[in-house]
């Protein structure tokens, strides 16, 4: 009897052992799979040596976002328009919609996603700072600066360029409720100020202040705008530019270059015609459109004529024009003229053409004109149209045309805090 019980227990134990062995073997087998060679494990990025890669995530998405978004905004504004019949290349429907002021909400899925990815990567960088062992404190500071700066930049873009409805600007953070522009800009300012605590160079400080000045400009805070702009980028400072990787096709030249049908408003050609030296900041190319047995010349932008032409996010020239505008509003036209002429004098010389003449007087209108010319093909024109309520849409669209890039359909679909449309 004892033997039988012993035998029974032995069989049970053996079965249990075999099952355990099988389970262990299965687990061992499935985990013996070849690890992917094209992916990076999250924790492997907590390494100082990987900082360039982490930065590249931020700047890469920023570039992807602004390449198209700047074109959409320029087409939505009165700066560029879509035409037909001047070449065989079709205009993508999305540009036609922006030109009409009636973009479908899903048209901005990609750009909204890219911009949000900039914030995500910037926040991810900040979250890694405590996990990384830095050999130099300057690298830690750079992480903090890059992180806060880009979060602030994203919030500024939400506030300045995006909207929940045709007339209501603002954005969304982390799937939360809609945040109106002014409130979003407050958050941006707070993060720009955090970035200022980690700057390592004066250039970085001035760059941040230029963005802060633009926020105050858009929010109508003249005094603060002037103060920050004076601390911002100055003559000789490099713009903050988004760089194309080699061989990537340039969105602007591919859609608004020669043989394409997105062209600048006629007045830009008029500006150059009136002052040939304006071609230094309004570079145009001429094409020939075959229309009814004759050739009609048309003009396209030539600012982005190469695959790698960078796109500026902000420049010292814009900063100077902000100072000039605030000075004019402060009734100091003489000081404003200095800033305007500083910008005009710096316009790139066109070979064979005399330098752009300096102005003897200035006023608000002339500064607005200077801004149009200086900010040509940067996507910023719409900010002035909104500030000065200077719209070009036909009366039938007076109430329905978008003054912003619409917050995307995908965000509305997946964010329970937003209305669907």
């Amino acid at each position, binding site marked *: 009897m004892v033997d039988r019980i012993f035998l029974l227990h032995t069989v049970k134990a053996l079965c249990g052992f075999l*099952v355990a062995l099988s*389970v262990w*073997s*299965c*687990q061992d*087998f*499935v*985990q013996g*799979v*070849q690890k*992917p*060679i*094209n*992916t*990076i*494990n*999250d924790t492997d990025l907590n390494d100082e040596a990987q900082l360039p*890669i982490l*930065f*590249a*995530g*931020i*700047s*890469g*998405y*920023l*570039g*992807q976002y602004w390449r198209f978004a700047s074109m959409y905004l320029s087409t939505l504004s009165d700066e560029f328009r879509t035409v037909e019949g001047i070449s*065989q290349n*079709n205009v993508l429907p999305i540009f036609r919609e922006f030109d009409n002021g009636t973009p479908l909400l899903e048209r901005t899925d990609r750009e*909204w996603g890219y911009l*949000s*990815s900039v*914030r*995500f990567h910037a*926040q991810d960088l900040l979250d890694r700072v405590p996990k990384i062992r830095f050999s130099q404190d300057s690298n830690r500071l750079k992480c903090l600066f*890059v992180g806060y*700066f880009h979060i602030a930049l994203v919030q500024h873009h939400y506030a300045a360029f995006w909207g929940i409805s045709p007339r209501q600007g603002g*954005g*969304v953070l*982390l*799937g939360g409720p809609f945040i109106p522009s002014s409130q979003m800009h407050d958050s941006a300012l707070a993060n720009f100020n955090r970035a200022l605590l980690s700057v390592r160079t004066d250039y970085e400080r001035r760059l941040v202040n230029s963005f802060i000045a633009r926020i105050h400009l858009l929010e109508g805070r003249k005094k603060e705008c002037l103060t920050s702009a004076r601390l911002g980028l100055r003559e000789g400072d*490099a*713009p*903050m530019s*988004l*760089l194309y*990787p080699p*061989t*990537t096709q340039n969105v602007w030249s591919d859609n608004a270059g020669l043989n394409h049908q997105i062209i600048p408003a006629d007045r830009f050609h008029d500006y150059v015609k009136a002052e040939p030296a304006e071609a230094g900041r309004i570079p145009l190319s001429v094409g020939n459109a075959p229309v009814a047995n004759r050739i009609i010349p048309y003009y396209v932008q030539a600012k982005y004529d190469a695959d790698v032409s960078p796109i500026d*996010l902000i420049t010292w020239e814009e900063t100077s024009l902000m100072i000039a505008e605030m000075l004019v509003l402060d009734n100091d036209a003489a000081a404003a003229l200095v800033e305007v002429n500083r910008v005009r004098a710096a316009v790139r010389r066109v070979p064979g053409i005399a330098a752009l003449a300096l102005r003897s007087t200035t006023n608000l209108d002339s500064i607005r004109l200077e801004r149009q010319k200086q900010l040509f093909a940067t996507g910023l024109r719409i900010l002035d149209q909104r500030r000065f309520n200077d719209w070009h849409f036909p009366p*039938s*669209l007076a109430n329905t045309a978008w003054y912003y890039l619409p917050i*995307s*359909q*995908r*965000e509305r*679909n*997946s964010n*329970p805090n937003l209305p669907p449309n």
Partner: protein
Amino acid sequence: MNCPKYIVRMPLLAHCVLLLLLVTGGAAFAQIATVQGRVADKQTGEGLIGASIMLSPRGSVRSSEYVYAFEDMRLTMPVLTGNDTQAQRTGAVALKNGTFELKNVRAGDYVLTVRSIGYKNVVKVVTVSTDQSLTLEIPMVQDIQGMDAVVVTGVASRMQKSVAETAIGRVDAVTLAENMKFSDPAQMLLGKVSGVNIAPSSGAVGTGVRITVRSSAGLLGGQPMIFLDGTRLLSVDYYKVFEVDEISPLINISPEDIATIEVLKGPTSSCLYGTSGQNGIVLITTKRGQNVRGLLSGASTLSSDPIFRYQYSAGWQEPSRLYTEDIALTSPSVNRVFRHGPLQQHDVSLSGNVGVVNYYASMEYRKEQGILPKNAMERISGRVNLDIIAAKGLTAKISSAIIYNNTDAAFTADGGGQYYSWIRNTLTANPFANKQFSTADSLAIASIDNTFNIDQFIGSAELLYTPVFLEGLRLRMLVGTENNRSRFLTYVPSGTSPFLAGGARSIRSSYARRFNLDLNAAYSREIMEGWTINAIVGAQAFDNHFGLDIANSSNFLTPLVQTVQSGQGAVPAETVSSFREAGIFGRFETNYLQTYFLSFGVRNDFASTLGSEVPSILYPQASASVRLDKTGLLPDAINLLKLRAAYAESGRLPTLTQSSRTWKLYYGGGSSLTGPVINQLYLDNAGNSAIRPERIQEVEIGMDIEVSNVVGGEFTYYIQNSRDAIVDVQTPSSVGLGQVPQNIGGINGWGFESQIYAHIVSTADEDLQLSAIFNYADNRVLNIGKNSFIPFGNPLNTNYILPGFRRGVFMDFVPLRPNFLANGYYDWQKGPTLDTVRTALGSTVPLYTGSLAATFRFLHDCTLYAMIDGGLGKSMLNLTRQENTLVGNNKRFNQLLTALGLAKGQAADIGLEVPAASGVAVLSPTSPEYRSAAEEFMHLDPRRGVVANYLERADWVRLREVSLRWNMRPTLASLIPGFSTTLRELAIGISVRNVALWTNYSGIDTEYNSPGNIPSEAQAQSTDRWVLVQPRVVQFTLNIGF
């Protein structure tokens, strides 16, 4: 002991020799008899050559041997069991005219078992008396539904279909291919198995299919797992290039090689295959060699004559429908592009037996051209299958196939390929610009190369061992492997299209290495009179490794040099993916008197992960059936009445990366602030460490009935339930995580499937068999958590997973009323006012499907076969029509445009460049007629409410297959002396596929099933965007056998 001295003095060895002499001598002088007879078809009286007759002493036959078999014993008798060579058993094969003879049979009671392919087994007790010559007449009844065939009922379980506890679909491919010519196994399944829907993805040659089994168990559906002779194939494999229609791995399997196709339809039968089998299993078994002369002891050492078969087929493809002006004004242009594509095929096979080896070897060559230019396929394949009786009770089975396939893949689909699509370029050209091609001309499109080559090896080695020391124990080991190398080349010469003015070249070279292992042991025993048990334990493993190398470039300076590096932006890319699955399982099966059946089992599944915790889940399974016809309670006319019920769980395990966060690098730029870079970091997988396996439950009840061996039916109702579905949920973009895997809810599915068959006429000269299938399958998405719906990623985001609706429902904002300008004209810019909420408008998969097939043999040797299939409750999004409308290619739209004064040059010209239609009265903008026309016009608006305006019902009935075959051999044999000894087989036939289509859909074809970019590979989108019509395939065949 008082015994003779000489005996006592004998050494031990001599005792043994004497004993042996006594025994054998006794046997030699025992009373023996001869058993002879004839096996014949009960209805026609024709002798059944090749029927196997086994005579086993009563009491030695184990019921488990037949109930829980390794496989269909009728197909593989000579290699089956170790007991066949036991001395007391004897057997024979029916030869000429079905006669047989068994000599030297000892007197006693025997169990006589007679089997013949296509007939029901005959089992009866016979008594052999001394010195008697017993003559038996054995009439056999046709098994029209294969109820006596052994089918797979689980990963290591096999039963006769007549006692299976779940609904198992089975296609007798040999019989099917005798009548109809098929190009791949999917065509053999279409309309043949209840609960299974097959939808071709395009009318182009060499493209894939979508297989939907029942209501698709998981939230996102999925494709069934496919096994070829035990080797696991991936259901969806090859990458698409330039949006060419997907290519199916099934296109490389020659239908002429297939013996049977079995379908395990849901978790109730596929549970023990693990999570990958949640949407069913398709088991394809190829032909094996047979020893038709020798059967049992002694005879099995004889070799049989090889059977040589050759089939030649030739024919053509043509469009099964042509475009009409109602579809597009440019219909003549596209109809001119279509062509008759010739095809031809040679199939050679050799099968037989040499000693202990049964062999089957075949070669196939198929060359066909599609109905579009630049669409063709050339397939060469070879197969060798060997069954080796390696030792007593030990059988080795080797299956191997090598395939070479070269496909010219025409551009037909949407996406990037639209610019080179024959259909798009001809159909969606502006009819008023006198253009035949919209973006590229015919010469340019014809200059594009888009080829797909694949070299593939599929093989398996299987060992079956029934040790003699432990009767009832069966051990099985199978190793399967699939290796392939493929190359997809696309070359668009410069100048072909304004979108790629400088031309482009893309090369995708991939390789796949897959390996699967099955180990199982089964032990069956009759523990008491009539009560049999069968216990199975086993393990499965699968290793998948896939690599893809890509090189793209564009803008070639000259077409004279076409290498990738000659273009600009030559960027190589490499993708490697691997995953493994493993599982252990156990199953216990029992039956009493072969009348009451009960089984239950369990499987634990494991899958690879990059996380630390291996995903693992336990799935139970239980099933039961009862053969009421064997209880004696029913009239004799009911020869089969089986009730069955089953419950099982399955699921879906997280994939390799779903539980952990991973990143990748992608080509991207930098900024002046952080410096220039070439590759940017991006989040590849947000990951979710809390992810759990999806669990799917299924309950199935059913009934199989057969009356008088003439009429029968199978009826099954099932309920499926999925919980904790793993879905990559789109988080709000503002979060920046993209899609995050979440357990977000589930889906309920249910359906009814049935098959009715009848053998109405059966005489020597005439035979009529009918089969009808009716399926109903539906599902409802349950709560899916915080995110109210999941849009599938098709071009318009029009399919959704929404609580309360069918999976993949079409949703849109319906146009409510037209808007008018101040002057009364239709406001084109504003378009109609849309509803504020989306409305469910239709489903991508049909609610009801079915088929009707008839096989009629007449004049003794001629067979007419036809099959009709159809579906109800499916919708198609007609984006072809929508695109055509935009370019003025919609006749009705143009008429309304004119009536409303919106055409070119009219009072309210909207700039569509569409001239006023002739003969159409222009309406006054203030008239009620104008408002009425505007209402109709609103529903054709191609810009707003697109899904609402262009979604159409797409019910269909298609005369799918028709064939006529004349078996010439009997006729010629009666005319030419000695002919029958020369030729085993001589037949000619004609097969026509896709003969006619009747549908309420306005487009060219109801079958278009591109997977697009949807998150699961299974869910159909049912979107018509320059769909290529299914071809009508006409093939003439000549069969010769020696």
